[in-house]
């Protein structure tokens, strides 16, 4: 595990994740107190990545359960392969007869079959899904339950039971208990509010959009080939767009996508035309694009005013 909060920060940095002190503290607590973390925040602020990096930093396996509407226990925990079991039974028919040779009474026959029980009810007929994988894993693991808000409240109730004791009962096999209690990270986009019961069990981490300095650092880390000036401009623009009332506010992923795209185009600095052409990398809805363009025009005007007479050609608007 981690030796301190600083250790978290350092090891996350090695795995290309910039953890604020607050994030690092919560992660450190989660590992020390062995509590699940519920990570909430807008889209694209690094919730999913946080879990991945946590696993990588500790050298743990990472097991991911992606939630969606209608997700049920069968898809999340395990399925019993009845068909396979029946097939075995059929194929082994002759063997069964052998076992039964010489049985004098029905009782004796039943007893003999019962003695072979484990053949018919064994783990080989269990098809494990992520949650069972996490429980039966031989290695310590990080269990990421991604976008829990997309699953139904019913599934949440089921999850709650699981999180409290990390054991499941498979009727055919009995009770399985986790060898290593996994570190659990749940993420939510707040499509719906999680139940109080779930929240009570978890440490809560709210990740908001990063400030300018932090975002710039992330860009430099993730797209080192980008020109510094370009990175700065993009971050400034994205930061100002986040202040608008958009249907979907651009996250860090969008910033990174934009910087990457522009870098591929060999751009070192933004200009109006480029912004217009590539704006749809960061804002997706038509209404948002319109609002963003308005804002950017304003922004350009302001920058220009500040620069005074120095403003060059019409094209060089952002600089």
């Amino acid at each position, binding site marked *: 595990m981690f030796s301190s909060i600083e250790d978290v920060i350092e090891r996350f940095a090695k795995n290309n994740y910039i953890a604020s002190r607050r994030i690092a503290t919560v992660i450190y607590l989660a590992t020390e107190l062995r509590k699940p973390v519920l990570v909430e925040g807008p889209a694209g602020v690094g919730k999913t990545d946080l879990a991945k990096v946590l696993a990588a930093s500790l050298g743990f396996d990472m097991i991911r359960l992606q939630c969606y509407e209608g997700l049920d226990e069968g898809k999340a925990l395990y399925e019993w392969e009845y068909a396979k079991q029946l097939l075995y039974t059929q194929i082994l028919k002759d063997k069964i007869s052998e076992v039964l040779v010489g049985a004098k009474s029905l009782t004796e026959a039943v007893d003999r079959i019962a003695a072979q029980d484990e053949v018919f009810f064994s783990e080989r007929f269990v098809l494990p899904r992520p949650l069972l994988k996490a429980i039966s894993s031989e290695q310590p693991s990080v269990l990421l339950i991604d976008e829990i808000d997309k699953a139904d409240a019913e599934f949440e109730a089921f999850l709650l039971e699981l999180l409290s004791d990390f054991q499941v009962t498979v009727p055919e096999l009995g009770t399985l208990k986790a060898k290593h209690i996994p570190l659990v990270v749940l993420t939510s986009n707040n499509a719906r509010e999680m139940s109080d019961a779930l929240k009570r069990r978890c440490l*809560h981490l709210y990740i908001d959009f990063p400030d300018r300095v932090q975002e710039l650092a992330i860009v430099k880390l993730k797209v080192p080939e980008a020109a510094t000036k370009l990175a700065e401009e993009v971050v400034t623009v994205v930061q100002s767009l986040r202040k608008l009332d958009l249907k979907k506010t651009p996250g860090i992923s969008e910033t990174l996508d934009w910087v990457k795209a522009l870098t591929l185009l060999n751009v070192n600095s933004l200009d109006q035309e480029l912004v217009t052409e590539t704006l749809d990398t960061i804002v997706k809805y038509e209404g948002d694009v319109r609002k963003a363009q308005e804002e950017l025009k304003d922004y350009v005007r302001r920058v220009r005013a500040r620069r005074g007479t120095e403003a060059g050609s019409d094209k060089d608007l952002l600089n």
Partner: protein
Amino acid sequence: MQEKLVEFANLLRENGVRVSLAETLDAFSASEVTGLSERDAFRAALRATMVKRASELPVFEELFDIYFSGLGEIIKQASQAVQNALSMSDQEFQKFLDQVEKMLQKEGKNLSELARQLLQNNSGEMERKIREASRAVKLNGIERTIEENYFARALARQLGLDKIEAEIKELREQLEKMDIGSELKAKMEEYLERRLKALDDIIRRYVRMEREKRDIKQKEDQRLNQIGEKSFYYLTEEELKKMNEAVTRLAQRLKNVITVRRKRSKKGRFDIKRTLRQNLKYGGVPFKLRFEKRKKEKPQVVILCDVSDSVRNASRFMLQFVYSLQDLYSRVRSFIFVADIGEVTECFRNNDAKEALDVALTGDIINVYAHSNFGYAFRNFVTDHLGAVNKRTTVIVLGDARNNYNLPHDWCLREIRQRAKKVIWLNPESRNTWGFGDSEMDRYAAHCDLVEECRNLNQLYRVVDRLVAG
């Protein structure tokens, strides 16, 4: 520390943050991991364990500052003020304190603890003492500005300020006789006096801070109460926005309760008979297993929402509720009416809340500028949409029943009720006015299982509670 955390949890609770005992204990274990000395880590630890809703974070931050930095900060500032008054640098002040220490060793044997701590600038211990004393005088009961004097005096008495004053006076007299340079002597004199004054200052500022703490709570209480009790008719834009959040959460709660209930009567059992029957064709080898169908009594709801001008604010708000419900259940059908009636189920399904409400209220679906005609709307519903109602359907009508003296056609409502499981009417008008003027509420009420006044958020809460219970 545990005590302090329990107190802090109470404070959070008083300010509307729901912190359970288990969470307070978690906060305690977390703070043991991070330690207290590092403010940011300590703060993050409490934040992660005690606050589980993003919307409650600002309250937490504010209270944390007041509660944990509060008294300590005041004491520090007071000490800084003393240093400034003596116009010493940090270094000089430290050296000076060493001299004070020497002096105290000689002359201060009889000093009380607090006096000694005060003069030694031992802020941690002082803080502890002052907190203790404030508990004794029940400082957390302070509510109004005019009580500040009373509590400041009580706290001073509890701390034994009189005695400290006397002790320091005595110390000054002894100082006179001491054989140290006159310059140092003068400084010491001033120091003693300033320190004494600083204590008084600390007490006053601390009392004020405590009062302000309660103030935040009061303001918040007032705001919530107001918004909860305020009639839908008089809401401002800002309030409407707040309401919308509340309503969405309300609908969510409704769903949670129902889900948990449904979960209890779970899972179909293995159905032997059907399995055998279905597998006859495989010679009785059960290839396909059959389970009893889980009976999902999915609640079905049909909502008829009045969106006429007379209930404009209320209906926006009701529609928001309808929208949230529909978002949560697959089987909700929503209709709006003024005189015409039209279905908005699809429109709600395909748009986000704001757009959906706009579409519903700007007249693309029905003419919203017509004069209310409940009778006409009900009759059209019976003619065109009665198929939407069956014996598992709960029908909810939202409206003020002001029919402009048109024909009420209450037989339509009777017909609806005969097919439905239940008919519920929520009226945003005050009960006193029902049946007066053009209100047909009494007539319609005869064909409802439940009629409720629903003028504000609190009433809506109650209605939802009832719906959930029954």
